[in-house]
């Protein structure tokens, strides 16, 4: 008898029996009512910037230039380009614009390619007042314009008002030809102006850190006021400070 009870298998079975018996108990239920939880959708608002004005489908339209048979040197052609804060939520943003200018001319294979021997400084862009050029980041080809105050939602800020070709293009002449005939070769003849405009926007919350992280500018920079041409140290107007 004792041996029987000491058998581990028997002990296991007995133990299981005891546990099984104790789990069976009376069940009770309480009256509860519960309605189905409503789904709440969270969506972060969109943060966006757009370039408006004489622009169609990502291409800049040169309406006044197209009206003239040939581009008149020195004439200021009207060209209206603005930047707009098109954020979905109530987001203000700081905006900067990078303008890249170049000359394109036809190369041997018939394609229009950037011509590096022609200087983009002769393409003059008129910018509306209120923008500041960062001299350290700008070259003949690339100019960076900053807006120091935040742009509110749906606010449209005018940027470019006109384009002009400097009359130095007529002066750059090479004299060639034979001993009896002198011909003038104009380096800029047949060249097209190519302009690229890139607008960057950054949030105004923690503005100082955001500007420093996105654009690498800490506090202030050496800026040229486009309306006066004066160079001075300028600061961003930080909203929440």
């Amino acid at each position, binding site marked *: 008898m004792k041996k029987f009870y000491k058998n581990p298998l028997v002990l296991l079975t007995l133990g299981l029996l005891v546990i099984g018996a104790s789990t069976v108990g009376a069940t009770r239920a309480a009256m509860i009512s519960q309605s189905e939880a409503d789904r709440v959708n969270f969506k972060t608002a969109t943060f966006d*910037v757009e370039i408006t004005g004489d622009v169609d489908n990502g291409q800049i339209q040169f309406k006044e230039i197209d009206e003239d048979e040939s*581009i008149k040197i020195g004439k200021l052609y009207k060209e209206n380009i603005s930047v707009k804060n098109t954020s979905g939520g109530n987001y203000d943003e700081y905006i900067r614009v990078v303008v890249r200018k170049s000359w394109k001319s036809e190369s041997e294979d018939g394609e229009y390619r950037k011509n590096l021997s022609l200087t983009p400084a002769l393409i003059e862009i008129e910018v509306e007042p209120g923008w500041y050029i960062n001299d350290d980041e700008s070259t003949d080809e690339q100019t960076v314009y900053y807006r120091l105050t935040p742009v509110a939602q749906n606010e449209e800020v005018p940027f470019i008002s006109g384009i002009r070709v400097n009359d130095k293009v007529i002066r750059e002449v090479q004299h060639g030809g034979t001993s009896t005939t002198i011909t003038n070769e104009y380096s800029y003849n047949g060249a097209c102006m190519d302009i690229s405009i890139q607008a960057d*926007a950054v949030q105004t919350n923690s503005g100082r850190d955001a500007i420093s992280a996105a654009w690498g500018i800490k506090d202030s920079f050496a800026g040229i006021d486009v309306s006066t041409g004066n160079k001075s140290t300028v600061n961003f107007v930080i909203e929440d400070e």
Partner: protein
Amino acid sequence: MKTKWLYLVAAVALVISISAVKPALAYFTATRTVEGTTKALEIGDVPPELDEDVVEMTKMITITNNGHYPIFVRAMAISPDNWQVNFNPEDGWIQEGDYYYYTKPLAPEESTATQLKLDIVPKQVDQEYDVPDSFNVVIVQEATKVIYDDAGNPIPDDWANAISNSINVGR
């Protein structure tokens, strides 16, 4: 014993790698780019065309712009020693020094509205000379490209950049 050591090292490595990862922060940014290319500049030289009629001793000259770009034109007459050229005033032409200037710019394909009239008369000289049967009066014509101001109005011509063309005509 060796494996226990390995477990310890692995555990330490795991703990460090988990705690060393910092949460990432991003600022909202947005960017948009547009591009555009204008048409080509057409500033090549095309010498203007010089036409002339001769009626008795008067030359009547018309200049036509055959190029693609507006130009200002002027002309000069070179006559032999014993002859001189007199400017017969005509609307649109003025004389300044040796040159006769057309006051308005010529658009592409446009001709001067009025003709430049030059009378060729003998000079008063002391000695006698034989009048030749025929002689040449050379008309030299020059053009310069028009430069505009901001409003699109042509600014007065600058003759430092003249393009030359000349024509040899008989009496």
